[in-house]
């Protein structure tokens, strides 16, 4: 009896460890949560601790929690540097028609712009431009590079 329960417990422990490790490796190797890139590979910085870009899910322009945090850092940085203007470049991955992607890139750039504006940055300091799928940061055809390409990038103008 006791032997049997012991065996059960051991098996359970082994099982749980297996599941947990499977989870953690999946997260780490992909750097994608849901459909959105969460890694650091392509990210550049406007200043120390201020990432220049946020990432989007396929066909979507809504901001994730992580994206909002990044944009708040950008807003803080822009509030400190009052003379700075930026352009937000909107991009799409290659798995869509060219014209729709131009519109989608525009929408993504504007989502980022709107969020900066709600944090007190004047719209006059932020211009937007969409490049659709024309300027991939990662040219490989893979889910990982597509997720890196679905982005809006804040670029200093002056």
């Amino acid at each position, binding site marked *: 009896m006791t032997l049997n329960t012991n065996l059960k417990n051991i098996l359970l422990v082994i099982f749980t460890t297996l599941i947990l490790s499977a989870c953690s490796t999946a997260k780490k190797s992909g750097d994608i949560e849901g459909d959105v890139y969460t890694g650091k590979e392509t990210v550049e910085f406007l200043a120390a601790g201020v990432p220049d870009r946020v990432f989007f899910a396929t*066909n979507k*322009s809504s901001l994730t929690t992580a994206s909002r945090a990044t944009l708040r850092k950008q807003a803080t940085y822009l509030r400190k540097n009052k003379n700075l203007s930026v352009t937000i470049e909107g991009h799409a991955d*290659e*798995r*869509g*028609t*060219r*014209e*729709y992607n*131009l*519109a*989608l890139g*525009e*929408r993504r*750039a*504007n*989502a980022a*712009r*709107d969020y900066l504006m709600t944090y007190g940055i004047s719209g006059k300091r932020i211009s*937007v*431009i*969409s*490049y659709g799928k*024309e*300027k*991939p*940061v*990662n*040219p*490989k*055809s893979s889910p990982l590079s597509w997720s890196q390409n679905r982005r809006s990038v804040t670029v200093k103008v002056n």
Partner: protein
Amino acid sequence: MKKFFYFIFINILLLNSSNALIEIDITRGNLDPLPIAVSPLHVDIKSEKFKDLKVKNLGEDISKIIEQNFRNTGLFNPLKKDAFVQKPDIAHLKPRFEDWRLIKAQALVTGKLLIKDEKLKVEFRLWDLAAAQEMTALAFTTTPSNWRRVAHIISDKIYERLTGEEGYFDTRIIYVAESGPKNQRIKKLAIMDQDGFNTKYLTLGNELVLTPRFNPTNQMVTYMSYFRNMPRVYLLDIETGTQEVVGNFPGMTFAPRFSPDGKKIIMSFAKDGNSDIYTMDLESRIVERISDHSSIDTSPSFSPDGKFIAFNSDRSGLQQIYVMRSDGSNVKRITFGKGIYGTPVWSPRGDLIAFTKMHKGKFFIGVMRTDGTGERLLTENYYQEAPSWSPNGRVLVFYRETKAGEKGKGFSAKLWSIDITGYNERRLSTKTDASDPSWSSLLSK
């Protein structure tokens, strides 16, 4: 561009449209292509020199272009010349029909040419070999440097006579020529004859250019350019090279196309992240807003009668195709199949809409009736989009991209065409990688 686009049809010898026996079934594609013999055109020995033209070979060269055009349709089977049984000049006077029938030809093309006083005079005849009679004949005069177009015009006349439909050989294709690595592509506007010859570049590649489209009534082109990093729709006259920005919009304009009468440009304008459809009248410069919706509305295309507009919108969540009246009223969704749909393009015949469909990670080019019924997927691939119609509504040209490996290795973009029957898929030859093709109307109409 050049002043040589004058053509004088001096002499229509005979247009015998009755009791012809040859018929091509064009509804089935290339199952049973018609065997046709294209004799080299006889070169008159009185022909004079003209610049660096190889006058002696001209008759042979013209016949080869005609053969290539016919082969590309998938509807004809041009027979090998070494089996030909009569000299070109004699066959042109009157073929020995029974001899040509022996090599299994059903139709025969003969002709002759003469270059004199810097003019090229050409005549050709099409013979029905079974009925032992002439079907059509035509003679015309042009400048000798136009000799490739002569071959295309002859091809068009024969195609018309044998299929009952307008031809599409004396046409050009404008497209975006691509070079360089995938993440630093250099893109230029380029134009070529439909058979891939006479490529000319219309921009230098200093700025990104996209989606050129022909005016269906003349040789004007509308396209999108990132000139001065401001993405806008432009109008380009390819004869003179002059160009101008279309309208005075405070943001990105894109996805331009002409109205069927060539007098308006329809396009998308993006404002505060939202894209809607607008038209601009090229003469009065009046801008009209056609769609007004918080979703993305883009890729508009007029019906050939100008009464309707097909476009794609994600107002239902994902991209689908919609049709509305040309004033923007009466919007109806027409695609309900599995997958998402884009780039609707109305056939010049008016009966079909070509589109791109994305489903389960694959891209399809297809056609459907204008109410969305009768969907037929013509071709499936890793990535392809942007169909454009041949002027007779019989063939679609589109572009296809390959999957790229690490650092973009193995990536390519090419132009392809396919018959609306789903047969005869083939790659168009281009000097560089290519995308965004648009087919012109017939030049000699």
